[in-house]
């Protein structure tokens, strides 16, 4: 992946350095938190999976028991109950309610069954009034128990699927932070540091050069000033003595040697 050499395009200033550092800190903290979340979700996932496997097996048992009960009922009440039951369907008396539960930060659905008392139960009650009523009641009870197990299994299954997706998303985010965002920020920070160092070096170099110039300037000025001062003096002497400037100059130069013979 080209993620290794990438960096953000920013102006390499000190402010940006501070901003990038803050973002890196945020990314690191977010990465640790998301990893923890992913671990917690995986733990939940495994417990739910185990529960699903065991519930499915018990469901097999219960379904078998309920179909036995049904066969008994059919035997006792005659074959016609099928039609009677099919005719007597009106409004469902056994329904499910769905709620949301928050587990480890993920909203998981939960189903629970409940009996709606107002719905039409009367017609089905009359089934088997002629014969086989007990078997029919037993069959109904067995099926209601089966429905309970099935509802629980359904909510386990939906939580399972939702958790699966949540784990995938969280892992995707963790990987993105780890492999893309953080290296990019780190590269940007080292780039900014490098640029700042270079600017500093440039500044330093410029400073040194200017210092050199200034020194030379000052020396030159000193020289010029000295020369000017000498010429001025020579002029004064020449005016006093009425001699040319160059001989005055020579005079001064010679006089600077402190000749004892000359008494002024």
């Amino acid at each position, binding site marked *: 992946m080209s993620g290794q050499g990438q960096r953000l395009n920013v102006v390499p200033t000190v402010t940006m350095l501070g901003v990038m550092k803050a973002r890196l800190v945020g990314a690191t903290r977010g990465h640790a938190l998301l990893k923890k979340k992913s671990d917690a979700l995986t733990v939940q996932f*495994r417990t739910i*999976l*185990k529960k*699903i*496997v*065991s519930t*499915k*097996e018990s*469901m*097999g048992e219960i*379904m*078998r028991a*309920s*179909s036995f*009960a*049904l066969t008994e009922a059919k035997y006792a009440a005659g074959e016609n*109950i*099928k039609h009677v*039951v*099919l005719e007597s*369907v*009106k*409004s*469902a*008396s*056994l*329904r*499910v*309610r*769905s*709620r*949301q539960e928050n587990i480890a930060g993920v*909203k998981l*659905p939960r*189903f629970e069954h*409940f*009996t*709606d008392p107002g*719905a039409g*139960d009367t017609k*089905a009650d009359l*089934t088997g009034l002629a014969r086989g009523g007990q078997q*029919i009641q037993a*069959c*109904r009870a067995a*099926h*209601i128990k*089966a*429905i309970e197990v*099935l*509802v629980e*299994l*359904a*909510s386990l*299954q*939906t939580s399972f*699927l*939702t958790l*699966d*997706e949540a784990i995938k998303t969280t892992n995707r985010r963790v990987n993105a932070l780890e492999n893309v965002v953080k290296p990019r920020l780190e590269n940007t920070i080292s780039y900014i540091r490098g640029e700042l160092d270079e600017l500093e070096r440039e500044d330093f170099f410029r400073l040194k050069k200017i210092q050199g110039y200034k020194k030379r300037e000052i020396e030159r000025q000193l020289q010029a000033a000295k020369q000017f001062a000498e010429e001025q003096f020579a002029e004064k002497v020449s005016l006093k003595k009425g001699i040319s400037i160059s001989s005055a100059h020579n005079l001064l130069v010679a006089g600077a040697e402190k000749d004892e013979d000359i008494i002024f």
Partner: protein
Amino acid sequence: MAGRAQIPTKNSALIAMIADEDTVVGFLLSGVGDVDLRRKRNYFIVDSKTTVKAIEDAFKDFTTREDIAIVLISQYIANMIRFQVDSYNNPVPAILEIPSKDHPYDPTQDSVLSRVRYLFSAESIASSRY
């Protein structure tokens, strides 16, 4: 999180069934059967004469209806529309495969469990068998 399907909190939802006659009759006895005002039922009886297309249509109908929270489908029927069942990804309604009288439950064919078959080491099944 915004893009994910929201699971509605409903107060009363139905259980749909796609199974053979005996299973359906048994569950209708317990009271899950429902016929609404438009004579739409929440169960679909499959016998030897039902076409695969009819089963597919019933499945699609049940999964798109808003008042159905769980769809119970016999495993051998699910095998007939295995492709559709496997490509169904929404959490609601939940699709549950149930065994029928002649076809006992086979966990290797369950669409949900097959997705995590890699987690099915012999040890995890064996430990739950004890």
